[in-house]
């Protein structure tokens, strides 16, 4: 074999002369964010003198949270091409996990008499660990069942059906034993003829015991953990625990849900993910500790006496935009890496992908899990900033909004998603407040147009989506030329 000709290789390994201006767009973004974050990093109260307008403070935070959510959805919907309508579900998992960990277990310190909120990162951490333990164990059990069924299907085509019947028979036998007072599944007297099944009961009991131990946020272990953290760092560390807990819980749910559903394609996958997100929402709506349909107030910084919306925004601004930047960085770098190229192959042709040895389901699940993790982070931040949890906030409408952002931004284009996210999140408040900002010299009918547009905002969303599909199926804000070599050194 000869060496590559000299006129080709340098072209491929150095940044292209024709690299678009926005190829290194993240550098100015990172510098800007560093400047914004600098006072916070130095310590003290950042932006203490800055006056935050209540309304726009809220919108600024919403943009940051939406950036996290939309860019993480871009990884699933755009880059991997797996059309998911269930992102709000992952967001809900993250939000409830993060919110509840802080509210129920991270608010009051075990040793502080005056019970300053936000001071018990140890308690929050133990709670997160407890929930993750239970989720992981149930996930493992579900995965084991799934592998067993797959193995049975390989051994004999009728295997899974026989397995189901056996399971049903076992359950029926158990009910019969229970009604006769002999015992049954999950422990019972030693006379239980199905003695081996006690193993299951023992497992459940062990998990339950460790669960109740971990749930005790005034336990010595929690106190030890909390007291090992300096008082000034307890607030941020509680937030970090809540963020990571929310993200990990969402990732685990993403894995458990992704394995079976990602075998589906196209419309079927969209319907399955929609079903999963509704399932999560319904489960939350019916859960007593999570406040059912009315929800609960998240015990955040907001409950401190002097917290107004302005100081709240001051505290959360670096967190929200830090997570957004992290998400953008992770998704962008994954896209321009071997795994990203493999995901792009899946989007183009699954059969050809497996013919070159790409593990189709594995890569889909990977994209799903990472997307869910990042959505969980966004959800947890949402819980903290919003301060009030309600299942209605995570309905299908929210998923659709995110899908519109991703689609308008261009499937596979991260910069496009960022711009679409900014525009669409700003659209509603801008239209709403048109009476305030519209100059007086503008003709009267401009106000009628903006108020009409405000009223029919959702209709306009849908029309934009249809127009985008008809006119530019790769997105209105997608600047990338079709054949640009992703290996050509622009990253």
């Amino acid at each position, binding site marked *: *074999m*000869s*060496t*590559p*000709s000299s006129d*080709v*290789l340098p*072209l*491929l*390994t150095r940044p292209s002369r024709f690299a678009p201006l926005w190829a290194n767009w993240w550098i100015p973004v990172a510098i800007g964010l560093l400047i914004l974050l600098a006072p916070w990093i130095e310590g003290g109260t950042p932006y203490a003198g800055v006056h935050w307008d209540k309304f726009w403070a809220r919108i600024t935070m919403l943009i940051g949270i939406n950036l996290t959510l939309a860019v993480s959805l871009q990884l699933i919907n755009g880059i991997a091409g797996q059309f998911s309508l269930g992102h709000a579900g992952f967001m809900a998992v993250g939000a409830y996990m993060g919110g509840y960990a802080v509210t129920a277990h991270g608010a009051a310190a075990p040793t502080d008499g005056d019970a300053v909120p936000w001071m018990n990162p140890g308690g929050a951490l133990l709670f997160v660990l407890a929930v993750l333990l239970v989720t992981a164990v149930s996930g493992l059990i579900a995965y084991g069942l799934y592998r067993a069924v797959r193995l049975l299907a*390989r051994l004999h085509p009728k295997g899974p059906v026989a397995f189901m019947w056996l399971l049903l028979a076992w359950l029926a036998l158990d009910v019969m034993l229970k009604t006769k007072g002999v015992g049954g599944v999950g422990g019972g007297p030693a006379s239980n003829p199905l003695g081996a099944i006690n193993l299951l009961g023992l497992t459940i009991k062990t998990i339950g015991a460790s669960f109740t131990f971990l749930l005790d946020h005034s336990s010595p272990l929690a106190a030890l953990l909390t007291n090992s953290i300096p008082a000034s760092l307890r607030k941020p560390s509680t937030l970090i625990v809540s963020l990571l807990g929310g993200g990990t819980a969402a990732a685990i749910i993403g894995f458990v849900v992704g394995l079976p559903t990602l075998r589906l394609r196209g419309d079927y996958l969209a319907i399955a993910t929609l079903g999963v997100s509704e399932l999560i929402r319904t489960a939350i709506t019916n859960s007593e500790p999570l406040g059912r349909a009315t929800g609960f107030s998240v015990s955040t910084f907001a409950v401190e006496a002097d917290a107004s919306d302005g100081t709240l925004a001051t505290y959360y601004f670096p967190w929200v935009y830090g997570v957004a930047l992290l998400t953008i*960085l*992770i998704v962008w*770098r*994954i896209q321009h*890496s*071997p*795994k*990203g*190229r*493999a995901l*792009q*192959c899946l989007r*183009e*042709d699954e*059969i*050809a*992908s*497996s*013919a*070159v*040895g*790409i*593990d*189709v389901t*594995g890569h889909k699940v*990977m994209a799903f899990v*990472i997307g869910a993790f990042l959505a969980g982070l966004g959800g947890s931040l949402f819980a903290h900033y919003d301060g009030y949890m309600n299942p209605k906030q995570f309905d299908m409408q929210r998923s659709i909004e995110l899908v519109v952002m991703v689609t308008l931004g261009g499937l596979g284009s991260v910069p496009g998603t960022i711009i679409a996210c900014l525009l669409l999140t700003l659209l509603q408040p801008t239209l709403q407040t048109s009476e305030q900002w519209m100059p007086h010299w503008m003709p009267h009918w401009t106000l009628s147009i903006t108020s009409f547009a405000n009223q029919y905002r959702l209709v306009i969303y849908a029309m934009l989506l249809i127009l985008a599909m008809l006119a530019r199926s790769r997105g209105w804000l997608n600047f990338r030329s*079709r*054949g*640009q*070599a*992703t*290996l*050509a050194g622009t990253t």
Partner: protein
Amino acid sequence: MSLLDVDNISIRFGGLRALGDFSFKLEPGDLVGLIGPNGAGKTTAFNLVTGVYSPNEGTIRLAGEEIGGLGMAAINRLGIARTFQNIRLFGPMSVLDNVAVSIERCDSDGPFRHARCLIRSVARTTGFFSARSQTVDRAMHLLETLNLAHHARRPAASLPYGDQRRLEIARALATKPRVLCLDEPAAGMNPQEKMALTELIRGIREKFDVAIWLIEHDMKLVMNLCQRLTVLDHGQIIATGTPKEIQQNPKVIEAYLGEGAVH
């Protein structure tokens, strides 16, 4: 022990037995053809060996290792690569990327390979950059060998037909196969392109140390190129042998030209 040992495999689709009692052996460095009329089951045989379908009966061994029933990706990783009758390239991706994905897949082996690769990519370690430049080098070598280097940055779908066929071969070779299955590589080519393809396939066998198994309708090309031939009709093997033997086999002539042609 043969490199590829297919022993009595069969597959049924509902009531139709698409392939029955198909046995076949491939030694290292072989160049063997599979021919037969339309609908004879040639592509089905390919699909069984490359893992698109699992056989109902029989065993498939690659260097002694049973591979029947494994998935396509797993079989590819064990060393069988293929091309498709209807070209299946990653159309909007560049020619370079089409080859690079196959190379990058080979690079990541061992425990936790997905996690390690992800962390390397997100952290952009030096390993990431050296792996990337190695990938580009190897992909360009391969494209040079197959005379595609000047197209490297173009979208695969924009290539001329013959180049697309060659790119598919390049992509299959990038997975470092021990067996290369070519499904009608000359379909839609003009006589000059077919001549070039014959030379290319011979060259590939020498340079890449790979056994080649190919389906082809062009008899001239097959007789020219292959050492041995297998003839399929209605899902059954009707003849095996050297091209000369096959040309004179009355059963084969009957299968192609119909009954009463042998007179």
